[in-house]
């Protein structure tokens, strides 16, 4: 408790006379003082699974930075994570960010879902705390801040993002579909889109539809027969029966992990014949648990997701380490982007002129060009005038022999894709 900031302590004492529960004593730290980063993620509630992956990714990265001697230009200053939980509720994004800044956090990191991320933006801008978004796809989060800076309502933009935006997801998915179909020498006339009807699914399918309309590819999407389902679903048999009636060439689902567990077996049970299942974005299809549960139903399924660059030995080493630390889970989109975010922050701190001035940190963020990321990027990590990294892109992955493998774009591919899928 000795290292707790005074305001916090007096406040707790004042409001809660009975709040004298003994906190765990913290060891005295060696000099120099660590740089504190607030990592806010949804580690409980409906988004607990990805949120916990983000947290662990960030924790491993901080350990790696500190083991490598901390921030060298600042006398080997170590990093310290202050952990926050949004419970998957937006209002907690704000209060957790405030709490951790009050405990001494000098930068914000988070927060997986776009709602609580937007709530954290207000803390970043009001309190002048630089905020690096590790995951959150909604375009307006950064674009809105950039606009108010441009219009002169805000002086400085404190919010930056290293993650593909919703529109990037849609554009890239349509591009990959077109390229893969061309390479496989097929022109599907009936691509059926299905999606979970939550915020994520609706935004993904809208981005995909908009990009499809803009790109006018040679293949045909059944735009008027999009099949949504309530998330989490209790039963998808009627939705799949509808899908069957569409006689699809290609089935294109946007699923959450729980709905994938229902959807794919149902497609097999109802014996829908198609060239294959290719999704424009389905988190959680590639988890070890999912693959064990779905087995042959998941074989040959493709999905466009942000994906670690497993061609790099560094990524492979970390993935092994992550698997050990997480109890057998795969190093993936969430853990990977949170891991990279911490390293981007370390890179920024290394270059920042001074650390007690948030504007100096922002200046360093704007000059970022980081190439050692573990994720698959289209180029070095840098931030454009909106505050987004245009090189953050998804990769098409496919489940082959019960393992997720990057198959497209070509320069990221570990193996060639298998499409159309072989008949059983």
């Amino acid at each position, binding site marked *: 408790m000795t290292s707790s900031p005074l305001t916090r302590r007096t406040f707790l004492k004042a409001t809660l006379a009975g709040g004298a529960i003994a906190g765990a004593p913290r060891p005295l730290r060696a000099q120099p003082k660590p740089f504190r980063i607030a990592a806010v993620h949804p580690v409980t509630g409906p988004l607990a699974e990805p949120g916990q992956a983000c947290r662990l990714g960030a924790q491993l990265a901080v350990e790696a930075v500190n083991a490598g001697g901390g921030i060298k230009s600042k006398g080997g200053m170590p990093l310290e994570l202050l952990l926050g939980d949004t419970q998957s509720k937006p209002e907690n994004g704000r209060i*957790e960010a405030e709490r951790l*800044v009050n405990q001494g956090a000098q930068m914000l990191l988070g927060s997986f879902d776009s709602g609580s991320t937007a709530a954290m933006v207000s803390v970043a801008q009001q309190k002048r705390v630089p905020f690096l978004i590790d995951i959150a796809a909604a375009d307006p989060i950064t674009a809105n801040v950039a606009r108010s800076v441009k219009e002169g309502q805000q002086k400085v933009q404190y919010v930056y993002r290293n993650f593909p935006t919703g529109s990037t997801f849609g554009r890239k998915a349509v591009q990959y579909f077109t390229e893969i179909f061309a390479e496989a020498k097929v022109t599907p006339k009936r691509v059926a889109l299905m999606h979970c009807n939550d915020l994520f699914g609706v935004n993904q399918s809208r981005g995909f539809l908009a990009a499809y309309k803009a790109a006018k590819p040679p293949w045909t999407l059944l735009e008027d027969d999009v099949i949504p389902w309530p998330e989490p679903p209790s039963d998808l048999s009627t939705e799949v029966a509808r899908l069957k009636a569409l006689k699809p060439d290609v089935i294109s689902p946007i699923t959450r992990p729980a709905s994938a567990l229902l959807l794919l077996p149902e497609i097999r049970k109802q014996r829908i014949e198609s060239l294959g299942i290719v999704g424009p974005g389905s988190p959680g299809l590639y988890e070890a648990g999912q693959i064990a549960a779905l087995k042959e139903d998941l074989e040959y399924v493709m999905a466009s997701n942000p994906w670690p660059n497993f061609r790099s030995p560094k990524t492979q080493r970390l993935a092994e380490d992550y698997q050990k630390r997480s109890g057998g889970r795969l190093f993936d989109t969430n853990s990977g982007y949170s891991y990279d975010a911490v390293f981007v922050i370390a890179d920024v701190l290394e270059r920042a002129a001074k650390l007690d001035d948030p504007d100096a940190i922002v200046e360093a963020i704007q000059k970022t060009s980081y190439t050692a990321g573990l994720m698959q990027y289209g180029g070095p990590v840098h931030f454009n005038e909106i505050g987004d990294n245009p090189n953050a892109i998804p990769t098409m992955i496919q489940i082959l022999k019960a393992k997720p493998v990057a198959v497209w774009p070509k320069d990221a591919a570990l193996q060639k894709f298998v499409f159309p899928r072989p008949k059983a």
Partner: protein
Amino acid sequence: MRRVAIAAAVALLAMLPLVPSVFGSYAVTLFTLIFFYGFLGQAWNIVGGYAGQLSAGHAAFLGIGAYTAALLSVERGVTPWLGMCRIIVSNTEALGGAVGYYITFTGDPRQFQFQDARAYYYVALVMMLAVTGIVAWLERRRFGVYLSAIREDESACEALGVNTFRYKMLAMMLSSFLTGIGGAFYAFYLFSLQPASVFGIPLSVEIIIRAIVGGAGTVLGPILGSFILSPLAELARYYFAQGGWHGAHLVVYGLLLIAVVLFLPEGAYPRLARLFRR
């Protein structure tokens, strides 16, 4: 004894406006949310507490208010200050297909956005005090008496010639109107709206539990409840959210909730009132 209690309450109240100048902004945020939930709990109290009509759908009113204010501001440039007044005008367009709204952060007070978080504190404080004033006033009027009568025995009330439906309806309208105002505040405090969070049952639950803990159907109950529960949640988070035990702080919070119910089975305010009457 009773005088002492009132004096203490007034003194505490007089100190609230000073909080931002004494404490850091974390305390300000915490208090802002305490006031905000106190406000919502109080609005719910009119229907749920006084009239005894358990409404679990209050998040929907909040959602409508939040969406309307956001939409008017984002699409039409209407200031939320105005939006807060005309929220009751339900805007069907606002609900049609809106999937998550993000509000541009500008810090422009004319758009109900403040560079300084303390402004929200005062707005929330005033909102909470105003609605408490309304409830305290109503409690003494015929309207409030009728509502309590409806809660205690609706058929007896009807037998005495009270149009119970009309009063329940009025209570509901007033309550949802106030909750809608809360929604406008919510939208511009958090700068984003997601249907799942502003219309969802978890938010309704958040609103209700504060009023119940403090004592439903009493003037100060919802506010007291908000002052009890929010710090408990923070305390649980402060001590148990670190480390690898994801969810431990919510287990602790749940246990605290159970403990509060077992120790204050009739609600905090009635208990306090009894203590002081002695």
